[in-house]
């Protein structure tokens, strides 16, 4: 029987997982929803910059951190926008993407076809998680890039005075912005893993999205309560605002490291839970 038509190379080494990852990223960035989320995030620095520009006056000292520096240096728009976006907007968009990972495929009926194709369940989780982390990076970049551009357009740009009082040049400050992107992306990987796990529990993507966002909010609320101080080092959002340490001279790397350690802990625990759940459950959707 000529069962091999040349299309199949089952006896050979299977292709690497990169083909499917590429397909996953294409799918993610072909969705209008993804671009709507990124545009909404990019609108944050634009709104901040325009509002500050229109109400030029002496610094009030109120409002989010870094807001007052904007009029002196447009490069601070990106930092101010990240500060505004971290508590709610970034977790919201990440929650949408991470909560959708498995439940979204289940609700469109594509999950069973991916598994039969076959994509191993572990590989599917890994690719979905990677896709969500790539979205985190894109989301952070959207805020920082839009902030840098609008800041440069509306305000003077020059050497930046850091939190430590030192002054760095424009190129150096752009590098610091890139580091902030990396920091914030790492900050959100734990939330991606939580979203991935929740997404394996249900076939209703909206439920998984909402639950993921709620977890990020709860984590921040708990972080506000001094009575729960013992819990704070374990909270997902504990180091979310630590990116400001990247604006010191020399750079204070300890919060970056602590954040990375905490987030990888979340990724391991919730990744394992997601794997345990997803590889043993019946796919009925």
């Amino acid at each position: 029987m000529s069962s091999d038509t040349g299309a199949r190379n089952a006896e050979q080494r299977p292709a690497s997982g990169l083909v499917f990852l590429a397909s996953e990223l294409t799918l993610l960035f072909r969705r209008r929803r993804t671009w709507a989320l990124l545009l909404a995030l990019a609108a944050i620095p634009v709104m901040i910059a325009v509002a500050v520009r229109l109400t030029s006056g002496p610094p009030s000292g109120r409002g989010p951190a870094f807001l007052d520096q904007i009029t002196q240096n447009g490069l601070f728009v990106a930092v101010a926008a990240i500060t505004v976006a971290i508590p709610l907007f970034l977790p919201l968009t990440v929650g949408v993407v991470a909560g959708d990972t498995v439940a979204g495929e289940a609700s469109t009926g594509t999950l069973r076809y991916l598994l039969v194709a076959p994509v191993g369940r572990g590989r599917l989780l890994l690719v979905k998680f990677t896709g969500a982390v790539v979205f985190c990076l894109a989301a952070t970049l959207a805020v920082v890039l839009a902030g840098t551009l609008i800041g440069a357009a509306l305000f003077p740009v020059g050497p930046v005075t850091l939190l430590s009082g030192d002054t760095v040049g424009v190129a150096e400050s752009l590098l610091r912005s890139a580091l902030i992107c990396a920091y914030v992306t790492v900050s959100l990987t734990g939330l991606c893993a939580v979203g991935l796990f929740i997404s394996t529990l249900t076939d209703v993507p909206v439920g998984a999205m909402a639950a993921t966002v709620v977890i990020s909010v709860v984590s921040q609320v708990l972080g506000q309560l001094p009575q729960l101080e013992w819990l704070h080092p374990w909270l997902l959002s504990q180091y979310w605002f630590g990116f400001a340490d990247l604006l010191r001279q020399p750079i204070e790397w300890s919060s970056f490291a602590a954040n990375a350690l905490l987030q990888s802990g979340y990724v391991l625990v919730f990744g394992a839970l997601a794997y345990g759940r997803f590889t043993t459950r019946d796919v009925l959707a």
Partner: protein
Amino acid sequence: MSDPTLLEGPVVQTRGLTKRFGGQNVLDGIDLTVPRGSVFGFLGPNGSGKTTTIRILLGLATATSGEVEVLGRSIPKHLPEVLPRVGALVEGPGFYPFLSGRANLHRLDAADRFVDPSTRRARTDRALERVGLSQAADKKVGAYSLGMKQRLGIANALLTHRDLIVLDEPTNGLDPQGTREVRHLVHSLTAEGTTVFVSSHLLAEVEQICSHVAVLRAGRLVAQGSLSELRDAGQTRVEVLTPDPDGCLAVLTRLGLLPQRSTPVHYTPHAGIEAVSAPLPDQIAPHTIVAALVAAGVRVTGFTVDQMGLEELFVALTGEGFDVVQ
């Protein structure tokens, strides 16, 4: 082919396959054997467990107990080797509505690590052509009709050569033209050496395309075999129309039959003509009955031999009416 075990023996074999859901057996001790090269019809009313069985065969769900082998390999242990050789349409099509038909197939093909990406475009185009979707390949699936989605679902099963293709209710939503095309498609797949497993609640559909049939009722397998075996299993009856029913009863009894007066099936008799019918054992040739009747002076108005049709057999096996059995 380096591994001959994938090419020998039944394509699907289950022993005592049982699945429990919420305290009841959805599948109860299924022993299914799908011969290689067959077009296997998996018949049963809604809710009888057809899709659950298919899910277990494809590793989407796990059996509570029992053994499952697909292409000679134990499932779910050997799924990674088996699934690339299996194409499936399970419980209706499932696609991303915001992608075109072609992009959807590319996505699912990219998910299969065992195919050659360089032939992806040619293979998807060929699959789309086989189901008659070439014209609509670049339309978004969200704009497809149910029948078009169904065709795309079948195209997905055809992306590469398969040893087994599972089609769960393949003609759902298809127009008569589409149904006929599916029939042709199944024939051409068999000609290529693919075994086709078709589930359906429509007997007529199965009768037209299948070589083998299994009938499921409330989670139990109530019949299984080749179509002709199943036809033969249907009872044969003789019916005699006669104005001399008493003489007829006597003659048939003497021949070893178990006759009884009956309501005529074939002919509305004139007054005074009655019907006598009896099950016909294999060893009695029908013409000897007529000869015996005539020899005994029984007047024969009509004589018929009837075989229970597949339709009647199906109804007898699965019960009648709309009630979902559970």
